[in-house]
C-alpha cells in the first residue's frame, strides 16, 4: 500500500497542472478512472522490482520532480518563444491602427462622454458610418481549444507589458441569456475593477478619458469567437462602432478558421470590422519545437523509445491532437519510467553533471548499483563485463556522446526535411529505429521489435519507403538550388557546433560553398529577380560537384554516427519503451472497466467466501454484481420478472449449497433446500433488487422501462 500511495501525490499534481486539459474534458469520466488504473498498474512493478532492493522511494520521487520541473519549464519557454514573433507583429499592428484612430482627433472629457456620436473633423457631416473597428483575427489553426487557452493569456500579459489596457473575454460572456449587458459588465469589471449592475458603454468612455489619453488603446481579446452567441456579438460590435472615436477599442478575435466568424456574425456586423489576420504556429510546429527542446537538446535526460514515440505519434495524429495531451503523456511516461527503471534515479545526478561538465558519473553510485547497472543487457553487449566503475562511467560518457551525435544528426536531417514538410515527430520515430547497416546488436526481442516497427513505418511515414528517409534526404540534397544549399549548410554549422568531428567537415564544405558563392554572387543577386538567371554552364558544373560532396558527406555521417539509440550501451537508463503500460495509463476505459469489475468482483474484494468459487454466483456476492452477471444471459431486453426470480433464487440459496449446485443439476433435494430460507421476507428481497437495478442504471448500464414495455429494461452497454 505504501508503495502505491507514494506515486499518487505526483500524479495528483500531474492532474492539477493541466487545468486546460480538464477544462475541456471535465465532463468525461475516463480521466478519473485513468488515474485509478494507473495506480493499480504501478503497484505491480514496484512491488516486483523494488521490494528486494528497497530503494527509498523518495529518492525516485526526488528524481522525478527534478526532471519534470526542468522539462516543464523548458516546454513553457518553448511555447512562449513559439508565439513571440506573432505577438510582436500584433503589437506593431495595434500601434499602427491606434495611430490611424488617433488621426480622427483626440477628444476632451466633455465631448468624449457625450451620448450622441462624435461629429467628425474630416468633414461637416458625421462619418460614423465609415468607421471600421480594427480587428485582428488570430487564427489558431486547431480544432481543439485546449492548447490555446494559455496562448491567449500570454498574449494578454504580453500586451499589458507594453502598457496597453487589456481585457480577456471568453464565449461565456457572450451568452444569449445575459445579452450585451453581460459582456459589458465583465469589460467594466476588468478595466475599471468595479462591479456595476446595468453598465452602459459610456462608462468605458469616461474611464478612458480619465486615464488621460495615454497613447494606448483599449484591447479586447475574445478567446473563442466561434462559440459566442452570434447575435450578442453582433450587438456588441455595433455598439462599439457607435462609440468608435470616443473609445479606441481594438478587438482581437481568436478563431479556428476565418469563415467561422463570417457564419457567426450578421453581414453588416462583418462590414463594420476591418480585419487583419494573424496565424499562430500550427500544433505540428509546436510539437516539433517541444520535441526538439525536450527530447533532442538534452543528451542525458529522459527520453522515449521507439514504440512509445510511435504510439504517442499515432495518438497525436489519430485521437487527441492536443499538445497538452502529449505533454501529459510524456509526464506519465516519465513517472512510470522513474518508478520502474531501477537505475533511473541516476538520471538526476547525470543531468546535474551535464550542467557542470564533469565526467565520472558513477563515482558516487553505490557498489551494488554499479553491479546492478552492469547486469543490464546492453552493457553486457558492449563492454564484455569487465566491471569497474571507470568503465561504467566511461560507458556513460560514451553513451552521452553517442546521443549527442545522434540528436545533432537528426536535427540536420530535420533541416533537410523542412523543405519536405516532414515533422520532427515523424523523423524522431523513424530515426530511433536502427539503420540496417549496423543491426548486429540485436537479440530476438530487438528483432521482433524491429519488424513490428518496420510494419508500423510502412504505413506511418509514407515517405519513408524505398530505403528510409536518409536516402530520400540525400536525394533532396542532390537536387537542391545553391541558395538553399548554403542556407542548409549554415544551419548545419549551427547545429553541429560542439561536436568537432562533424563540425569541421561541415566547415570545410561550407568554405567550398562560400567561395562558390562569391564566384557567382551576381548570379545569386539576380536569381531573386529572374529565376532563369542561373544558366551559365561552369557554375552548374561545380555546383553539382559540391552537391555531390555534401550528399556523400551526409551519407557517411549517417552511417557513422547514427548509432541507433536502442543498441547503445545501458540505454535503459534513459529510454522508456513500455507502450502497454503507458497506453493502459492513458486510455482508461470506464464503461468496460465497470463491466469487468462487476463480473469478477471477487478479484478485487478478496473475500474468503467467494475467492475460491470462480465465476459461480454465490449469495455472498454483492447484489449488483449478481444482477449484472445474471443480465448477461438476456438479450438487450431483460424481462424484469424473470430477472427478479433468478436473482431471488441465487440470493436465497444457502452458502453451503453454492458448490454442490455446480455439480449436480437441479434436483428435488435442492428444491427442498430452497424452501427453508423462505423466511427472509419477500419485501427486503425486492428492495435489494430495486437498489441493484438503480445502481446499474446510474452506472449507465441499464435504461429504465419505457412506456410501451413497462416490464422490460433495456441494456445499454454490451460486450467487453
Amino acid at each position: 500500500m505504501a508503495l502505491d500511495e507514494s506515486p499518487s501525490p505526483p500524479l495528483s499534481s500531474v492532474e492539477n497542472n493541466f487545468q486546460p486539459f480538464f477544462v475541456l474534458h471535465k465532463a468525461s469520466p475516463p480521466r478519473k478512472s485513468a488515474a485509478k488504473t494507473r495506480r493499480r498498474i504501478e503497484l505491480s512493478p514496484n512491488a516486483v522490482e523494488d521490494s528486494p532492493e528497497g530503494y527509498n522511494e523518495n529518492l525516485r520521487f526526488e528524481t522525478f520532480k527534478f526532471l519534470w520541473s526542468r522539462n516543464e519549464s523548458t516546454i513553457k519557454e518553448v511555447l512562449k518563444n513559439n508565439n513571440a514573433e506573432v505577438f510582436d507583429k500584433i503589437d506593431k499592428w495595434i500601434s499602427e491602427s491606434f495611430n490611424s484612430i488617433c488621426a480622427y482627433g483626440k477628444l476632451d472629457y466633455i465631448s468624449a462622454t457625450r451620448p450622441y456620436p462624435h461629429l467628425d473633423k474630416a468633414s461637416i457631416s458625421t462619418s460614423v458610418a465609415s468607421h471600421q473597428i480594427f480587428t485582428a483575427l488570430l487564427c489558431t489553426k486547431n480544432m481543439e481549444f485546449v492548447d490555446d487557452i494559455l496562448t491567449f493569456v500570454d498574449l494578454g500579459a504580453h500586451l499589458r507589458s507594453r502598457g496597453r489596457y487589456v481585457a480577456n473575454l471568453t464565449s461565456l460572456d457572450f451568452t444569449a441569456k445575459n445579452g450585451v449587458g453581460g459582456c459589458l459588465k465583465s469589460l467594466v469589471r476588468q478595466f475599471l475593477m468595479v462591479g456595476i449592475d446595468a453598465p452602459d458603454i459610456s462608462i468605458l468612455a469616461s474611464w478612458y478619458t480619465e486615464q488621460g489619453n495615454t497613447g494606448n488603446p483599449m484591447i479586447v481579446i475574445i478567446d473563442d469567437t466561434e462559440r459566442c452567441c452570434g447575435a450578442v456579438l453582433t450587438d456588441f460590435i455595433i455598439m462599439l462602432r457607435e462609440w468608435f472615436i470616443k473609445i479606441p477599442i481594438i478587438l482581437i478575435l481568436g478563431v479556428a478558421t476565418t469563415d467561422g466568424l463570417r457564419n457567426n456574425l450578421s453581414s453588416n456586423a462583418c462590414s463594420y470590422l476591418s480585419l487583419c489576420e494573424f496565424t499562430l504556429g500550427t500544433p505540428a510546429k509546436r510539437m516539433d519545437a517541444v520535441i526538439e527542446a525536450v527530447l533532442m537538446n538534452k543528451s542525458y535526460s529522459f527520453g522515449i523509445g521507439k514504440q512509445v514515440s510511435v504510439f504517442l505519434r499515432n495518438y497525436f495524429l489519430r485521437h487527441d491532437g492536443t499538445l497538452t495531451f502529449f505533454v501529459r503523456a510524456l509526464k506519465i511516461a516519465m513517472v512510470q519510467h522513474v518508478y520502474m527503471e531501477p537505475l533511473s534515479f541516476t538520471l538526476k545526478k547525470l543531468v546535474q553533471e551535464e550542467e557542470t561538465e564533469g565526467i565520472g558519473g558513477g563515482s558516487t553510485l553505490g557498489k551494488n548499483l554499479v553491479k546492478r547497472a552492469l547486469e543490464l543487457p546492453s552493457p553486457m553487449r558492449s563492454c564484455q563485463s569487465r566491471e569497474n566503475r571507470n568503465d561504467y562511467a566511461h560507458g556513460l560518457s560514451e553513451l552521452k556522446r553517442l546521443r549527442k551525435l545522434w540528436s545533432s544528426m537528426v536535427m540536420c536531417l530535420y533541416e533537410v526535411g523542412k523543405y519536405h514538410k516532414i515533422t520532427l515527430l515523424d523523423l524522431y520515430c523513424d530515426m530511433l529505429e536502427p539503420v540496417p547497416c549496423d543491426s548486429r546488436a540485436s537479440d530476438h526481442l530487438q528483432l521482433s521489435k524491429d519488424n513490428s516497427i518496420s510494419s508500423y513505418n510502412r504505413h506511418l511515414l509514407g515517405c519513408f519507403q524505398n530505403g528510409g528517409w536518409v536516402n530520400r534526404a540525400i536525394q533532396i540534397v542532390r537536387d537542391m538550388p545553391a541558395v538553399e544549399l548554403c542556407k542548409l549548410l549554415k544551419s548545419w554549422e549551427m547545429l553541429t557546433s560542439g561536436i568537432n568531428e562533424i563540425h569541421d567537415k561541415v566547415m570545410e564544405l561550407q568554405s567550398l560553398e562560400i567561395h562558390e558563392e562569391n564566384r557567382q554572387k551576381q548570379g545569386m543577386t539576380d536569381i531573386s529577380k529572374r529565376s532563369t538567371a542561373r544558366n551559365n554552364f561552369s557554375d552548374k558544373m561545380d555546383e553539382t560537384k559540391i552537391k555531390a560532396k555534401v550528399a556523400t558527406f551526409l551519407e557517411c555521417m549517417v552511417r557513422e554516427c547514427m548509432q541507433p539509440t536502442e543498441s547503445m550501451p545501458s540505454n535503459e537508463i534513459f529510454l522508456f519503451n513500455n507502450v502497454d503500460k503507458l497506453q493502459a495509463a492513458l486510455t482508461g476505459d470506464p464503461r468496460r472497466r465497470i463491466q469487468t469489475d462487476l463480473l469478477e468482483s471477487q478479484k478485487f474484494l478478496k473475500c474468503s467466501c467467494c475467492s475460491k468459487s470462480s465465476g459461480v454466483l454465490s449469495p455472498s456476492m454483492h447484489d449488483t454484481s449478481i444482477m449484472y452477471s445474471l443480465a448477461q444471459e438476456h438479450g438487450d431486453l431483460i424481462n424484469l420478472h424473470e430477472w427478479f426470480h433468478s436473482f431471488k433464487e441465487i440470493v436465497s440459496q444457502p452458502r453451503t449449497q453454492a458448490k454442490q449446485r455446480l455439480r449436480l443439476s437441479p434436483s428435488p433435494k435442492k428444491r427442498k433446500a430452497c424452501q427453508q430460507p423462505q423466511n427472509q421476507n419477500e419485501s427486503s428481497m425486492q428492495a435489494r433488487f430495486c437498489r441493484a437495478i438503480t445502481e446499474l442504471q446510474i452506472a449507465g448500464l441499464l435504461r429504465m422501462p419505457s412506456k410501451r414495455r413497462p416490464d422490460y429494461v433495456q441494456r445499454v452497454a454490451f460486450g467487453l
Partner: protein
Amino acid sequence: MGQEKAAVEAQMILRRRLCNPSFIFSIFSQSPDSNYSKLKYIISSSVTEASNNSVLLLGPRGCGKTAVLDLVLEELVEEHAEMVTVIKLNGLLHSDDNCALKEIARQLCLENQLLFSKMASFDDNSLFLLSMLRECGLAHKTIIFVLDEFDLFAQGKQRLLYSLLDAMQSVTSQAVVVGVSCRLDADQLLEKRVRSRFSHRKLLFLPSSREDLQRVLEHVLLLPTDSRLPQDYTATFNAKLLKLLADDKFKEIIDTLSYSDSTVGHLVRFLFHAVSHMNLNSGGFLSLEIFKAALPSLQRQPKLEGLKDCSILELYILVCMKRLEVKELESINFNSIMKEYKSVHDTFRTSDYYARKVCLRAFEHLIECALISFEDNKGHGQSVEFRPVKLLITWHELYQGLKSYNFCPSILHRLMDREGVSAV
C-alpha cells in the same frame, strides 16, 4: 418685414393651438348634446350630491376622450375648488396593481400635503387609500379616479379595480371612477365581481362628421382678431382662409383625408404639416398648394418606399420568393430561394448573378427593412439560411413596386407578369 414677423407670429399661434388638444375640443363644449356636456353632468352631479359613480369613455384614438375629460375636470376644479381631488393613472404606467396603488397614494399625499413614503407596502397603501376615501367621504370631498388606457387595468387579476369599486359601495365614500379606453369592448374585459360593481355608463366618442371637421378647421385655423398681430394681416389671412375652406378642391382634399381616417387627431396632424410649411413657400398665408402637399406626406405607402430602396439583387430575391409562394411550398428559406434564383439565372441568362455571400447580405437587408420576416422567433440555434421566412408584401404591391422602380431589369417584369397569370 412686418409681414414676415406677423407670419411667424401667426404660425406660432396656430402651432400652439394644434399642439393643445383641449383648445381644439373646446368647441364641442358649447353644444348641449355633446359628450362634453354629458360627462360634465355625470361627474358634477355625483360631486354635488355626494354619491359614488363610474363611467367609461370609449372610442378610437384621436377623438378627444382625454381632451374632453381634461376640460371637464378643469372646470369642475375651478367651480368647486377643494371639493374634488383628481387622481390620474395610466394603464401604460400603472398596469400592475402594486405600483398603481403606490401612485395613488403618492398623488393623494401630494394633494393633501401629507408626506409619502416610498417604502410603503401594498397593504399599507391600500389601507391608506381606504382610510382616505372614508375621510374624504366624511369631509364631502369627491375623489375622481381617472384611469387612462382602462383596458390595461382590466388585464391580470383586476385587484385594483375591485378594491376601488368595492370601496365605493359603502355610503361613506364619495368617489368617481372614469375609465378611458380605445377598446370599445373594454367593459367586457371586466371580471364578474368587478362588472357587477360597475355602473355601466358609457360615453362613446366617434370619429367626427364632415360638418364637425369643418367647424374644427375654422375653430383652429382662424386667427384671433384680438391678438397683437397687425390687423390687416389677420384680416387678409382669415379672408383667404374662409375662401379656401369654401373651395370645393379643398373639400375634396379633406374628404380624401377623412376617407382613410376621419378622426380629429388625423386632421390635426395634417394641419400641422400644412401650417409648418406655411412660411416656406407662399409667404405667410395658407394656400391650397400647401394642403395639397401635406396630403401625401400623411398617406404613406411604406412597403412601396421599401421596394424603391431595394437594390436590384434584392428585387431578384423578392421575385424568387414570390415565385416560390405561388408554387405553394409549405415553407421557404434562403436555400430554396437561392435554388430558385439559380434556376432563373440558368433559364434566362441574366447579367447579374452574384455570389452566395452577397445574396445573403441582400437577404439580411430585406429582413432588416421588414419586407420579409422569419416565420418563427425560436430556431435561433439554426443558421439564417435554414430558418423559414415569409414575404410581407402582396403580389400587387410587388408588382406596383417593380413598375415604379426605374431601371428595373425587364426580366423581372416578365417573371412577375407570368406569376400574375398563374396567380390570378
